[in-house]
Structures are given as C-alpha cells and as structure tokens.
C-alpha cells in the first residue's frame, strides 16, 4: 500500500495513542510528507547514505554456499557491510535528518540489543545532535559493549527496569518520555512499528534495500529474483526488502524466531503464532494471552525478541502475499556456522534466521532459479552468544 492516508494497512496499523501525543504525531506526518519529496532533503539523505553509510551495498553471489546446497543460486544483500554493521543506519539517517529539519533539539530512541541505539547515536553524532536511548535493563547487561559504544558516541543510555526489562519496555519508557517532553522531543523509532506514520516512514527509509536488489538483479540476470527472504522481528529490514518487490512475481518469505520451538512457548514468532491486538500505538498481530496481556518472548537473537510486528507485515500475511515461516535457535546456529565456514561471512543471529530458511528453499528450487537473502547485519556482536550456546550444548 503506497501511502495509507488513513494510517491503516487493511485493518492493521492506526494510531492508538494518548491524546498528548496526537499533535506530535500530526506534526511528524506533515513534515514527513513535506520532506519525503523535497529535492534538497533527498539529495542530502542520499549523500549521507552513500558517503557516510556506504550505499549501495553489494549483492553477492554466495557460490560456495549455493554449490554446497546444490539447488537454486543464493545471493546475499550485504546490509552487514553498512556503517555500524546493520541496516538500521538507513532509517536513523533519514529520521535524524528529518528531526533536524523539524528543528527538534532533543532525540530519544529505544533499543533492544543496541543496534538501533548505536545507529541512532552515529547518525546524531554525524548531524551534530545528541540522543538519549532507552534500553531494557536486561539488555544493558547482555550487550554491555553497545552501551559503551553509545556513550562514546555522545549519547546517554537509560536502563529500563519496568516490566520484562527488554525491548517492549524500552519502547514503553521512550513513549512515556515523549509524552512528558512532547514539545521539544523527536522520537526516533527503530522499526516499522508504532503509530502511523512510523510504519510507513520506516518502510520508506528502508526500501532502498529492495530497490537496490531489484536493479542489481536486473543487471546480473536481467530479471527479478524468484525468491526473496528476510528475517522479521519488528520487521524493518524485511519490509524494506519486500515492499519494492510485492508487485513482482517473486516468492516472498519472512522468517521469524521460533526460539525453542513454536509449541515451547519460548519464541518470538508473532505472525506464525500470534493473535490480533493493540500495542505501542498500532493494531497488529501480537503474542498475548487469552485476556490480552502481552506475553514474554524468547529468541537467541535479541533483535527479534519482540511480541509485536509491523502492521504492514500483518496485512501482507492476511493478504497471503508474503509467507511467514520461522527458524529455531538450533537451526539458526547451524546456519550461522554454515555461512561463516562456506563464505567467510559472519552473519548477525537475526540474519542467520533468513539464511536457515534460504537453505530450505534453495534445496527445493532448480539451479537456474535465484534467491535473494537480506543479510541485515554482521555477527561480530553475537560471537560470544554463539560460543556460550555451543559450549552449553556440547556439555549437555
């Protein structure tokens, strides 16, 4: 859906927000609509994306991996090579630049594992601003180094000790801050979630991924890919990958975190196992109990550990345009090691979910067919987690 004026993708999305935020969200929408087609703004953003973040990213043919599996050709969209090591910078540069145009003096953000927080801190440093980042207390311990990174970049990290002390609580706390400081504060949300216009705005800033895939595949093979795969937590790299390709014939697959298995109760597979509800300003699929209380999630990758999902994904699922599958922690570790060994590329655990699915899909397809996998981030941050997992499972 190009630009949903109502703020709805079918029945999903909307603006379920406290009244205090209504003027701020309206101001944001007005400015976004004004600047998104503004030549000067576009030129400036383009400059930062190219010269600062390192766009365009390569579309790499993973020959060793493809041959090892013996099916379709697998191409990797190398968002892991971007500045900061993940796709997050596409969105933070866009929004930080917008905040600057809106004359907002104070930037706040939430972060889970810390990738969006670091990308926000980088974009703000580059544009001469400072950010305050809310991060679940549990995550500040799990991802100590990212806290230090944000501090070095000039941003302040607020540990959040309410609720489950993870990403969803960090979003709650950022919204509370926004309500309190609504007059001078810009909330730089990190995924394609939240009240309208965030889901569509974040999608637009991330759509550079899918646009590049389209033109790079055309150059390489003179056609669109047969399959496109990306991992889904909140779903920003996925919607950025999918949106420019929904009008083609490509098979599109989003991969959620099945954690210890969909039946175990320890997973984050919102679209595969969730029900409709309202959280963080949007109507979408959620992991919740029978009474509407949001349940705790689990994933080996902190970046997918979220009980909601972007409303456009909920829409694409119900429209049956995109298939949403899932990968377990074990499958993810196998895919992580497989890509590392065959190609010398260490993927983020989030992205390894997409690799796990690509292996399954490639087996079923002919050699003449092509699969594009968005490698949303690099895995340096996860090496310790993987080591712990392997040590534990060898002992077990």
């Amino acid at each position: 859906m190009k630009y949903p004026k109502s703020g709805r993708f079918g029945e999903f999305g909307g603006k379920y927000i406290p009244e205090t935020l209504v003027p701020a969200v309206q101001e944001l929408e007005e400015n976004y609509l004004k600047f998104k087609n503004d030549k000067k703004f576009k030129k400036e953003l383009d400059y930062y994306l190219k010269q600062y973040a390192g766009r365009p990213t390569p579309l790499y043919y993973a020959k060793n991996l493809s041959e090892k599996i013996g099916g379709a050709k697998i191409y990797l969209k190398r968002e892991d090579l971007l500045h900061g090591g993940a796709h997050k910078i596409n969105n933070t540069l866009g929004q930080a630049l917008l905040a600057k145009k809106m004359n907002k003096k104070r930037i706040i953000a939430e972060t889970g594992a810390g990738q969006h927080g670091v990308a926000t801190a980088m974009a703000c440093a580059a544009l001469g601003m400072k950010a305050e980042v809310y991060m679940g207390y549990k995550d500040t311990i799990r991802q100590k180094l990212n806290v230090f990174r944000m501090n070095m970049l000039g941003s302040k990290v607020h540990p959040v000790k309410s609720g489950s002390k993870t990403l969803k609580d960090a979003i709650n706390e950022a919204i509370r801050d926004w309500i309190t400081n609504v007059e001078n504060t810009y909330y730089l949300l990190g995924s394609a979630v939240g009240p309208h216009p965030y889901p569509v705005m974040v999608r637009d800033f991330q759509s550079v991924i899918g646009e590049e895939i389209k033109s790079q595949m055309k150059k390489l093979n003179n056609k669109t890919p047969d399959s496109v795969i990306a991992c889904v937590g909140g779903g920003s790299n996925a919607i950025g990958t999918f949106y420019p390709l929904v009008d083609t014939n490509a098979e599109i697959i989003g991969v959620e975190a099945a954690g210890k298995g969909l039946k175990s109760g320890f997973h984050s597979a919102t679209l595969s196992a969730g029900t409709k509800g309202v959280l963080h300003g949007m109507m979408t699929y959620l992991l919740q109990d029978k009474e509407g209380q949001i349940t705790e999630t689990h994933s080996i990758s902190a970046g997918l550990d979220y009980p909601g999902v972007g409303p456009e994904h909920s829409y694409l699922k119900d429209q049956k345009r995109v298939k949403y599958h899932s990968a377990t922690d074990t499958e993810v570790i196998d895919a992580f090691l497989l890509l590392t060994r065959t190609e010398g590329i260490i993927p983020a655990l989030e992205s390894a979910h997409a690799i796990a699915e690509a292996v399954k899909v490639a087996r079923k397809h002919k050699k003449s067919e092509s699969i594009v996998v968005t490698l949303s981030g690099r895995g340096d941050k996860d090496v310790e987690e993987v080591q712990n997992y392997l040590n534990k499972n060898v002992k077990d």
Partner: protein
Amino acid sequence: MSRIKEKFSELDAKNEKALISYIMAGFPNEKTTLSAVKGLVKGGADIIELGFPFSDPLADGPVIQNASTISLEKGTKIEKFFKLVRKIRKLTDTPLVLMTYTNILYKMGYSKFISEAKKAGIDGFILPDMSIEESKDYLNAAKGKTDTIFLISPNTSIERIKKIANASSGFLYLVAVYGTTGVKSGIKNYTIKAIKETRKQTKGKVPVGVGFGVSTPKDVKRYVSAGADAVIVGSAFLKIIENTPQNKIEQKIGSFTKSLKKETKY
C-alpha cells in the same frame, strides 16, 4: 440517566464539585481493594475509578506501573475482576469507572467486554490509548450501555476538543500536565488556561474532570477554583495503600479522601 450523570446533577444541586478517586484493582490483593473502596465511600468520593492492570501501561508513571505489575502477579483476571465489581456494587451505589488499556477490551471484543462490565456494575470506561480516530467500534459497542470518557491534553486543538467532547459521556478527562500519571510538577499556568478553554468549548454539555499529578487538598482547591467540574486523584491513593498495613487501610484512605473532598465544596 447514567449513574455518573445523576451524580453530577446531584452535586450541582448542592453546589459541589466531584472528587474522583482511582485505585488499582487487586493491588496488592482483593481484600485491600475492598477496604480501600469502603474508605473512599466513607470519605465522600463521588466517583470511583477502578484500574484493571495491563502488562504495558504506557501512559502511567512508576506508581501505577508498579501497582499493575503486582496486581497481575497476584493473579488478577477479568472474570475475577468482575466478581470484585459485583462485591463493590453490594457495598455502594457510587458510580464506578473502569480504567484500562484498549487491548484488554479488544481481545475479548468491545461488545462482549462492555456488556459483561455493565452487568457487573461498571458505569463508564477510560482508555488512555484509545484515540478518537480509532474509536468507532468501541463507541458503537458502548452506546446506550456505559459512558465513554475520553482524554484531552493541554496541547489539544480547539477543533479536537469539540470533536472529543462530542464523543465523551459521563465526563471529559483533562490531563493536567505533559507527562504520565502520578508525576508531580506543581500547578502550571497552562493547565489553568486549558481548564478555562475546555469549559468554553464544552459549554457545560459534559463535565470537565482534571487529573494526572493531582495529589493534595491544595491541588484540588486550585483546580476547582479554576473551573474544573471534577478533580481526579490516583497515585496518591496507591502510595497510601503501599505504605499502610491492611487493617488501617479503610481508616487512612477515608481520612485522606475526606481532606480532598472538603475542597470541592464552595
């Protein structure tokens, strides 16, 4: 006429404004909630708001967040909550308003939830994350059954105040400050201005209640003299509940309520 509307006309006849009190159901247990309600009634609270806990209360400050978490940990569920409301209804005719978040109603279905709540004795709803734009199904479900109390803020435009006041029944909830519930920041000039502007726009069609950060008799007096039809106190009651042994709750809540209620008479 709804119980809330009746209450306001009754107060009007006595030249009084309404004291609305908020407590979280099941915090820290059902017995305490019942004691607190008895204290509120004895102290003269005109309307009682009962909070139903939600896992992600994004409009609430630390005091109500903590109360929500504890209430959920202690096993507060919808069916149990409705039973508690029935017990309260046997004690008093005071109007009861349910404050919770949209997802709790949406999950069960607006119609079903509102009907069940009405049967138990609930007179109205406050949903801080229900914006007027998304309220069509909710309003249809509540029509003729319960009041729908919407919130406005000091930064709400005149156009929106009119629109929201139109959809509101029972009263209109003016959020006093930029912030979450329970955060004390003193009485602001912009709040006094907002009370006057809101009353000008509503033209007496729906009473205006002021809440968020209201915690002392002095606050109550100031807002009443600025023109508020009702004043809402919440976190201050929860703090008393937090710090008082169970057997003293009724008396403590009662005397605090009385001190607040005194300031609504003029």
